[in-house]
């Protein structure tokens, strides 16, 4: 009897995560989606953002978000994969034990600290070396690339380690070197996990807010080069939510809705990719 009641209570508690997710979905969409229809799709996906004058175009922000995300992947994938391969295949137990928590620590550093390092070091460096304002797609890409490293490393590492030992032994028995084994065998065997790690890292980059606000410059136009200032969906929400009212606030929730849909789709892809093996 006691056990039956406990089970019911625990089931109710266990639904808290999915209920929270539904609650979040409901409120973000309820606040944002009506505006998309009110403004009309051609207005909403135009490049004109003047929400107090009835222009709700988010095109330049979508392009901005995609650009910094792509840039972050260019930085994050090679370094993330290199760390994961080095940790899983080329280092002894002692080095693994020290390096893994060190790389995980990168995930614990608050995003405002990354943004700050961007302001005081990276932005001046880019301004002096390459010209332009410094606050740029490039700056945001590099900082976001570092920020998504731990995600890519830990998921890739786990899937590399999960490849059965007999695979490696078979490969060595055929006379392959360690690197040949990694390149021709392990990377294929661990492919699904690596792809999932990259997709989740991509989600983190698209969703990152504070670091991007601090270093991307936030200009409202489609950037022409990596050195131009850029504004993302997330930056717009955080910059304007403090004072927005009425349709303007609704438009920010509409940005949130788009962002939310992108994140959930990426996450479902990641779950599907890993689930297949």
């Amino acid at each position, binding site marked *: 009897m006691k056990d039956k009641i406990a089970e019911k209570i625990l089931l109710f508690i266990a639904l808290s995560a999915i209920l929270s*997710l539904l609650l979040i979905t409901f409120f973000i969409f309820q606040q944002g989606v009506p505006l998309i229809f009110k403004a009309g799709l051609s207005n909403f996906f135009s490049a004109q953002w003047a929400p107090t004058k009835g222009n709700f175009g988010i095109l330049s922000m979508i392009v901005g978000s995609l650009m910094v995300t792509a840039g972050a992947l260019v930085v994050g994938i090679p370094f993330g994969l290199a760390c994961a391969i080095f940790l899983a295949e080329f280092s002894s137990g002692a080095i693994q034990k020290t390096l893994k928590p060190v790389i995980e620590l990168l995930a*614990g550093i608050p995003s405002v*600290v990354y943004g700050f390092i961007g302001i005081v070091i990276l932005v001046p460096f880019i301004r002096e070396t390459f010209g332009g304002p410094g606050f740029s797609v490039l700056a945001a890409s590099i900082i976001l690339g570092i920020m998504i490293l731990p995600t890519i490393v830990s998921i890739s590492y786990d899937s590399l380690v999960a490849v059965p030992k007999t695979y490696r032994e078979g490969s060595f028995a055929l006379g392959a*070197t360690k690197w040949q084994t990694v390149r021709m065998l392990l990377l294929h065997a661990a492919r699904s996990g690596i792809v999932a790690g990259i997709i989740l890292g991509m989600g983190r980059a698209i969703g990152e807010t*504070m670091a991007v606000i601090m270093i991307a410059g936030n200009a409202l136009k489609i950037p022409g080069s990596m050195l131009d200032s850029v504004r993302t969906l997330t930056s717009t929400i955080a910059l304007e939510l403090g004072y927005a009212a009425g349709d303007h606030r609704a438009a920010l929730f509409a940005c949130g809705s788009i962002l939310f849909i992108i994140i*959930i789709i990426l996450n479902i892809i990641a779950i599907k990719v890993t689930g297949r093996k």
Partner: protein
Amino acid sequence: MTLRVGPRTSQIIAYIILLLMTAITVIVLFFIIGYIFKNGVGQLSLEFLTGKTREMGKEGGIFASILGTLFVAIFAIVIATPLGVGSAVYLVEYTRGGVIRRIISFGADCLAAVPSIIFGLFGFIFFVIKLNLGWSIISGGLTLAVMILPTIIRTTEEAIKAVPHAYREISYSLGGGKLDTILKVVLPASLPGILTGVILGIGRAVGETAAVIFTAGSSLGIPTSVFSSTRTLAVHFYILAREGISMPKAYGTATVLIIIILVVNFIAYRLMHRFMARYY
């Protein structure tokens, strides 16, 4: 360009490149922490840690923000821990595959992937406006609770799974019911693992900005109740840095923030390590 490289040479080249890239990653991490410390440690003093914030942060200390951070994080943990631990217990002890398990796992996975600004939007419209809690410790704490829930669920799940099955069987053979077994055998045995999740949750709560700034606000007063608005350390640091109010104070605040994060991660790591060593 048809330079032929033997397998041994390519092995050495690959090793060097991988080593270099890993080294760069580690150096970047230490550089970030070192740079903040180098410029910030000089700012730390009893007056800075316990003093009132004056002139929007240009002068004085960060006591109000330390208190605010503490209250918001504690509030989040108090709400999220029972929910997270309960969820994990249900997932491991009461479900064997099946639809319910998949739904709960999917919820936790998606929640973990939701960006903090979305939590900010949600907390703002739901807790601050609809539930009329205003910009307050309670709104910020509840928002963060939702945000760290998946962390606690996942870590607790791993911890409970690590408890050997024999423990449960012994309890059953002594006549213990399922609930008794969970409360008196499984949970105590997995406590260090659960604490790891809770501590990691505290770390996320302390470092968070986007989800807190729109729910707890940015008021600089010393909080007097859970309905007071407060400015957490991360938010204070963000405002100092972005509005260029005071670089020395920004470095000082960042140093405090990073010290907290380092301590939190170190404790979590040690706990998890000792816990895993016990069962594996």
